[in-house]
């Protein structure tokens, strides 16, 4: 589709061409922004999964240790108090 020469200077046509160009640029920029956020989010999702796994292991260890120490203390107290 070509703009015929007699329409080239037409105010309506010029306005529409300009508007469409601006809209197109805005949409292109918006797409780029969305893509970048997707990528950041994916990287972060990967990292937090690893962190959570680490954290969850340490928490279980802490719990087990607390329970073991409490149990040992209980036994020792029994020995001390006869």
């Amino acid at each position, binding site marked *: *589709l070509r*703009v015929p020469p007699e329409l*080239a200077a037409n105010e309506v046509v010029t306005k529409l061409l*300009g508007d469409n160009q601006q809209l197109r640029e805005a949409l292109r920029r918006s797409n780029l922004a*969305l893509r970048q956020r997707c990528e950041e*989010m994916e990287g972060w999702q990967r990292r937090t999964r690893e962190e959570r796994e680490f954290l969850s292991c340490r928490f279980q260890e802490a719990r087990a240790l607390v329970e073991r120490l409490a149990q040992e203390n*209980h036994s020792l107290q029994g020995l001390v108090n006869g």
Partner: protein
Amino acid sequence: LLTPRQSLPQLDESLVEESRTFESRLQSLLQDTIQESESSMEMLREWTWLNDSQSFSSDLS
């Protein structure tokens, strides 16, 4: 800006398509991330053992 003498730019259908794709990709990514983080937090919210053992230890002090 294109001068009207040139061909009309194609309405890049792919531009409109692409926007839909990224919109829904970001939406589901965010949903997944929120859900994962909340269900893992759920698990880490179980701290009753901390209070149990805390009162246990205070026998001594």
